[in-house]
């Protein structure tokens, strides 16, 4: 059982997630997952125009780790970033101590943080 002080998390500034699915493919290739299984998926939210004609759209992508996400423990032991974090084209992912990540959530809206371990 991991002490809550030692929890690690995956932080995503989803305001800037473009939905490129690099994380999905990077994870599959790193962990040799079967074709129909994923360590992380990307959910599309929208697009819809909030007030028709207003040109203001709900159009977001939010990556969601699955039960098969292991936080790339082996990579981290080698001093590397989890493969999704390193590969993310929009550079919107961080991995680290949950306390620090939670604190950085104060900085802006449209971020999520998942506890991974």
């Amino acid at each position, binding site marked *: 059982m991991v002490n809550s002080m030692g929890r690690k998390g995956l932080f995503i500034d989803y305001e800037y997630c473009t939905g490129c699915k690099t994380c999905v493919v990077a994870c599959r290739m790193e962990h040799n997952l079967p074709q129909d299984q994923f360590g992380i998926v990307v959910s599309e939210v929208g697009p819809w125009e909030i007030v028709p004609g207003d*040109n203001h759209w709900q159009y977001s992508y939010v990556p969601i780790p699955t039960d098969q996400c292991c936080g790339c423990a082996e990579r981290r032991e080698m001093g590397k970033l989890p493969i999704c974090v390193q590969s993310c084209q929009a550079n919107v992912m961080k991995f680290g101590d949950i306390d620090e990540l939670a604190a950085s959530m104060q900085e802006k809206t449209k971020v999520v943080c998942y506890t991974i371990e």
Partner: protein
Amino acid sequence: MELARDVINGDTEWTALGTDRPVSWKEGNLTVTRTTARTGPGCHNGCFVLLYTDENGKLVKVEGDPESPYNEGRICARCLALPEVVNHPDRLMYPMKRAKEDRGKDKWQRITWDEALDEITEKFNEIKEKWGAKSVQFLQGTGRDISTYILRLAWSFGSPNPGYLLAGSSCYLPRIASLYSETGSFWIADCGQATPERYDDPNYQIPEYMFIWGNNPLQANADGFFGHWVVDLMRRGTKLITIDPRMTWLASRSDLHIRLRSGTDGALALGMLNVIINEDLYDHDFVDKWCYGFDQLKERVQEYPPDKMAEVCWIPEEQLVEAARKFAAGNNTAVQMGLALDMSNAEAIPAIQAIVNMIAITGNYDVPGGMLMPYYILNTGFGWGYDLLTPEEHAQRIGVEKYPFVANGYNFSQPDMVLEAMRTDDPYPVRATWIQTSNPLACTTGEPENQLKSFLNMECNVVVDLFMTPTAMAVADYVLPASTFAERDGLRTCDGCQYGATINKVTQIGEAKGDPEIELMFGHRWNPEAWPWETVDEMHNALLADSFMGNITVDELRQEAPIFKKQTYKKYEKGLIRSDGQPGFNTQTGRIELYSLALQACGLDPLPYYEEPVPSPINDPELFEKYPLILGTGARDYMSFHSEHRQIPTLRNLKKDPEVEINPKTAEKYGIENGDWVWLENQYGKCQHKAKVTPVVAEHMVMADHGWWFPEEDGESPNNYGIWRINVNNLLPNIPGKSGFGTNFKSQFCKIYKVKDGE
């Protein structure tokens, strides 16, 4: 005519990152090698990647290189899935031939490279003797790390006809031709890519505004331009203006999204020029000192008032005016010009010219966060070995007599005339093709049935590729196996990339060879004097010696890569652009020619103008009634590069079918539901796609994927992996603009209806 090249004062100094990293190192049982991802598979970028190979030399993993200033470890799905490309069981493993009467049949016979060299040489020499060297066409795709070599191969054979079969050369080349002829250089949006410090370089400033005009850079990754740099800039404060009938992710986060009617970009640009000039928003100092023909431009734009142009574009006038004011008001404005400008109007050149002029009169060339002049690492931008042919021989290139402006772009033949010549012998017979890095029947251009007839009319077709493609299966007499970038040594060449780098071999598949090596081997047979190098490394050392990095060898570059040149802004003030050392731009007048002397010399209108696309809902209302939707195509996808990657399991699993985007209201009108297979049909032909119902597209249009084939289907003719059923190019005619450039592949008409059972 050969164009002047960017000189930047012949300076050969460069700097490296200075990290002293080895080129490869061990990590457990694996070997890691750093390299540049280019090409094949095709790509416009050239990201830095780490290739992991196991003890048997098999490629097992790819990562982005975290120490690269270019992509900083970031990488797209296609590079990540590279091991599935490299090790795919369907890769071409050795050269093969087939009897001419067996074209279209899976009756291939394995031969050795020596046999391929002997037999193809004999066939090509026979054709040369009978019809002249010019009757052999050397056709490339957009695969990029090929132009340097295939142009030399064509010229060393004696043919003035390297080419690229896309109607009106309407991808990138119209932009290049227009930029070169008016400013003497190519320009790209400045995202700080010219120095290793990137956004932190003290001389750099982010653009205040960035215009995303007619493309989706996140997916398209224009040449030497990592699309997600736009996101970096947004997060640093750059405001976006997106001009696109599609509501892309970037559009949804833009200050202003102009959802114009497809094909009317020129009208919008001229209306904006009118506002910028008449509201006196332009940079007087830059115009006075560095532009030519402002008064003529001012007079011309009076014909294009903003209210009328907004009406043409089907947009509110306020949007046009706001865009113009923002373009001019910013401290600096960058423009990411896209494919739609080449394709959405039969007259691409004047639309691009209007934007080129807008950038000029607002003073946004060669300033931080404006437009960047990429220097050429290698002196090959317009052809390495041009002098192998005489000017008289070059004048025989198909198309330059009818369309002299084509010679201002690139040393390619005019594609629409080539396809005609292959069937009609006009202006002269074409009897053989060498097709490398291209899959024209499935992907590149319109009228695929006519293309098939053209290719079948040849005495010999040679295809060089990674896989058996629909084109190779339908028409080739010889197929030669090409390598991926993981299987070859090379230089990252072409397109004014902003760094020097090598491509490093880590594995070998079958008897596949790199494109440069294939060219060198055939060059040795055809014209040894033109290919005096024993090895690919020797050839590349010669290329480097002739470059603006003259003091480096391939081995040194492999170690030091990436290397950068010193970046200086406002080079035109300092005499750093022209070869004569004078201030100014590399044009006849030394100024940016708003009134284009190059266009005038070719008998074309020297000033930008607007004409309706052909067909046009305004000029062709009866046809529009019959086919009431505007058909766009050519948008890029994260999971593929044009017709590539269709057989790569991980990527195909994430994008299974050719899709056509249709607005929910339009779908309802035609009784179409998400996921339905539909026919798209017009006066030229029809194809099947799967409907994707989404408000991303405007109600007046549909947007269809291109380049689809089903490697899992029967490849033999007449099925050819399904291309005749699913190719959107069935609906596209090959009609170039007056200049020989541009075509209308983004605003044809069509109708849409559900596929019935059994169709």
